[in-house]
């Protein structure tokens, strides 16, 4: 087996700036997205994910410009997510240089959109974001549901069944984020990662909760993830991507060093 597991640094971008870690380090601003992307590329990142968390609509143009600037100098796969609702949105992002788009809320409100997008642009560029929260009590068999609006709004959808459905509809990859763990630095929710990874044939990216390098290892070994996504542990120089990759390789995981 020589296919490498991937490390994907994630840039949460608000009004043109990378943000994250406000809860933990008291730092709000992690820099210019183009600079940050360039740094991760130099550190041998396997892909980059750019999540536009800007609430306002008028900042769309800024995102396209950022994506275009990153794509002009960073020659690794670039996934862009955040507020994607139409094939026109996808077309504009791909034209700007994105390689994949991550569809979140729109997949829940209109699953046919995932089907239409994958038919039109190919499954290889359609990532569906699965934002899951554990809903079972301790002692019960574990169960997770899909939540939208940053984990505030329940949908009643079972996360594993929903993941299967999204793959049937044409998702080429799933970005599984634990809304319980996101921002906690306690590690991935390995249960949901494993349950979804075992249930689908497409690659799964584990996300939400990474606080140290052992969490990345566990995401692959116990969670069965094909790729691991993290933000804050890289943004402030705590670890470089290279260190993380070397650490994972030392634990016997196939990596691109």
């Amino acid at each position, binding site marked *: 087996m*020589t*296919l490498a597991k991937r490390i994907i640094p994630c840039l949460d971008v608000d009004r043109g700036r990378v943000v994250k870690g406000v809860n933990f380090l008291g730092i709000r601003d992690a820099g210019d997205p183009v600079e940050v992307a360039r740094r991760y590329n130099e550190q041998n990142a396997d892909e980059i994910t750019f999540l536009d968390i800007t609430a306002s609509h008028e900042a769309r143009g800024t995102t396209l410009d950022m994506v275009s600037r990153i794509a002009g*100098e960073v*020659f*690794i*796969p670039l996934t862009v997510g955040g507020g994607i609702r139409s094939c026109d949105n996808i077309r504009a992002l791909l*034209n700007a240089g994105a*390689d994949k788009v991550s569809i979140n809320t729109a997949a829940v409100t209109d699953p046919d959109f995932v089907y239409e997008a994958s038919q039109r642009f190919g499954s290889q560029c359609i990532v569906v974001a699965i934002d899951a929260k554990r809903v079972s009590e301790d002692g019960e068999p574990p169960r997770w549901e899909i939540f939208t609006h940053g984990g505030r709004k329940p949908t009643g959808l079972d996360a594993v069944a929903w993941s299967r459905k999204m793959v049937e509809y044409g998702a080429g990859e799933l970005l599984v984020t634990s809304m319980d763990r996101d921002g906690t630095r306690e590690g991935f929710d390995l249960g949901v990662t494993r349950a979804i990874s075992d249930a689908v044939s497409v690659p799964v990216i584990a996300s939400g909760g990474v606080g140290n390098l052992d969490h990345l290892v566990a995401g692959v070994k116990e969670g069965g993830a*094909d790729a691991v996504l993290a933000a804050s542990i890289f943004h402030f120089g705590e670890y470089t991507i290279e260190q993380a990759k070397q650490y994972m390789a030392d634990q016997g995981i196939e990596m691109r060093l």
Partner: protein
Amino acid sequence: MTIAIIDYGMGNLHSVAKAIEHVSPDERVTITRDARAIKGASRVVLPGQGAIRDCMGELERTELTGLVKELLKDASKPLLGICVGQQMLMDKSEENGGVRCLGYMPGRVTRFNDQALDEQGQRLKVPHMGWNRVHQHHMHPLWEGILTGERFYFVHSYFVQAEDDAHAMGYTDYAGSRAHVATGRDAVFAVQFHPEKSAEAGLRLLANFVAWSP
């Protein structure tokens, strides 16, 4: 000198254009479906994404099938096939219930087994997505400066198996199959992986393509 990226409506051509512009700032890179512009270019890229039936269908609909076949015969004009652009050069693909392709190289296109397990008993995912090793099977000017076993970025579920060993320029093993991820004949070189997304190794391959005089 102009490098034409054939735009027959399938897939994202901007990444390829940006990467070629990056390695050859002096060349003109154009994304086009204009037959005259493609004929006039000194080098041509045949990309392809999505389902092969759609790719072959769109090539036909944009009336470029004949032109591409003509270009393939021109042993002085380098052509680079990428992803489904590699698969289209073969006789046929088993995707979409069987699709006849351009027939430039004998061989077939089949699907990876999505039931295969790795050494740890984990299911191997299809599409084959991510960075895998490419082993160089024959010497070729496009391998110049790239080590055998170097990793490139892949996203695909179907793969090429060339009938003629002389056409198999490089291979990758995945899910129990040996995929000929680089194929070549005369002035044509084609890859299953995405050089435009494969960091330094990919940029080197593109630079080699721009410098190649077969």
